[in-house]
């Protein structure tokens, strides 16, 4: 607990929160632009389309933001060359654990704000009815899970490489792979495809009427396996990252 508190103390005035909320602001501005002046059919399926759009938007933006977050949490140790000293005070494993938990708390808070932002926007635009609480909650949990898996991967890379270019380029490459995967498939076993696999709403575009039909996804066995893979990645990246970090020379 003390180590975790220290992690939050370390990021004080490092504008980590500000960076994450700046991303949310970009998303909100995009939402204001994209959902502006909805048509009648758009109001009817508004809550569904919101979940769909958020999955797509997060699939593009969030992998890079996870690499930024992980880099900000790790680079303070690289800059100060503090690993050796820190490991004389506490185990390397607990330091790694504290950084992972700190990042997870930030991610949970970030997506809570994101959902609050967009639900408020939905009400403001006058979407019909109310958001389906069950699906919105499930979507929130899966979103946190898929992005925690990415964050843990990036944290491991950021802790291992003093040169932060390596993890950030990996994050960018992953973002790109995730985006392009969206055109090929509905799910992916790659860690960067988590946002895509965990999307609860899909859409069908009718070229003649130019209307999108949104519907709750029925997961096939392969798609369910892709969702389970998110949790396997979380375990693998956390355990793998922790083992590699504790066995390296500080």
């Amino acid at each position, binding site marked *: 607990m003390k180590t975790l508190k220290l992690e939050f103390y370390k990021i004080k005035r490092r504008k980590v929160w500000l960076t994450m909320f*700046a991303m949310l602001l970009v998303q909100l501005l995009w939402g204001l632009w994209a959902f502006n002046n909805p048509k009648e059919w758009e109001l009817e399926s508004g809550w569904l389309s919101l979940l769909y759009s958020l999955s797509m938007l997060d699939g593009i933006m969030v992998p890079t933001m996870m690499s930024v977050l992980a880099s900000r949490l790790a*680079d303070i140790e690289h800059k100060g060359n503090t690993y050796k000293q820190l490991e004389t005070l506490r185990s390397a494993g607990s330091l790694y654990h504290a950084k992972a938990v700190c990042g997870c708390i930030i991610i949970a808070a970030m997506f809570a704000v994101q959902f609050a932002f967009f639900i408020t926007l939905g009400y403001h635009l006058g979407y019909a009815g109310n958001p389906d609480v069950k699906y919105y909650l499930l979507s929130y949990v899966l979103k946190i899970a898929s992005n925690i898996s990415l964050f843990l991967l990036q944290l491991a890379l950021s802790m291992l490489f003093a040169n932060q270019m390596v993890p950030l380029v990996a994050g*960018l490459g992953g*973002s*790109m792979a995730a985006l*392009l995967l969206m055109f090929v498939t509905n799910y992916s076993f790659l860690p960067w495809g988590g946002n895509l696999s965990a999307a609860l709403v899909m859409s069908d575009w009718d070229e003649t009427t130019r209307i999108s039909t949104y519907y709750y996804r029925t997961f096939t066995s392969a798609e369910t396996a892709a969702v389970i893979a998110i949790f396997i990645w979380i375990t693998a990246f956390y355990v793998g990252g922790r083992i590699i970090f504790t066995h390296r020379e500080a």
Partner: protein
Amino acid sequence: MNLSLLKTIKSERIKLKRSPVWLAFFVLPIISAFFGTFNYVANQGVLKKEWYSLWTQHSLFLCYLFMPALIGTYCSYLWRLEHMRNNWNSFLTAPVSRFSLYCGKLSQAVVMVLIGNAWIFLLYCLCGKITGLPGLPPKESISWFACGILGGIVICCVQLAISMVIRSFAIPIGIGLAGGIGGLVMTNKGWGLYYPYSLYCMGMRANNPNLALDTKVFVISSIIYIVTFSVVSVIGLRKHETAF
């Protein structure tokens, strides 16, 4: 050419020696070309404009979303060394003008944009031939290439100014990504020529190879941004006598 300028270009090259930073410019276009070609082959029933359709598949997301962030990564890397320890002091006390110091950095970013664009076009030609497209890429692609480089230099100038001020390596990359997404919105609104992050993808005709680009406005807008952000950076260097 000014001797001090040559010296700064040489010293920047030494700083980048054996750095793997070019690898990102090599790998990301390959990912884009791979998926773009796959998508083109899978949807040939809809994508009927041969070389033009293949170009949209190759360039759309790379130009809008990832090149601004990638250029941001490179610019962050260029300033990274100066932000470490007391290197600002030795950087600013070098016996060359601040303008030359800035040009040294800019030159490296411009070279990487040139190489990156050449690689994107080479992949485009290769994938076109592999998928069996007839003839050569359209002659307009020369204009896409040239305008793309000019738009890329604009992003270099913006990102160099941001990375010079912000000590963090990661934050300017996030700004680059957000700028690219903003570019998508601005282009859609029809204001792409007046927004620095849109100029690259408009120059490359990433979403529409048949776009009738107002070249005069494009060039003027690019030059204005290049000069403005360069002046801001040089003033920034002049105002800060020691470390940021």
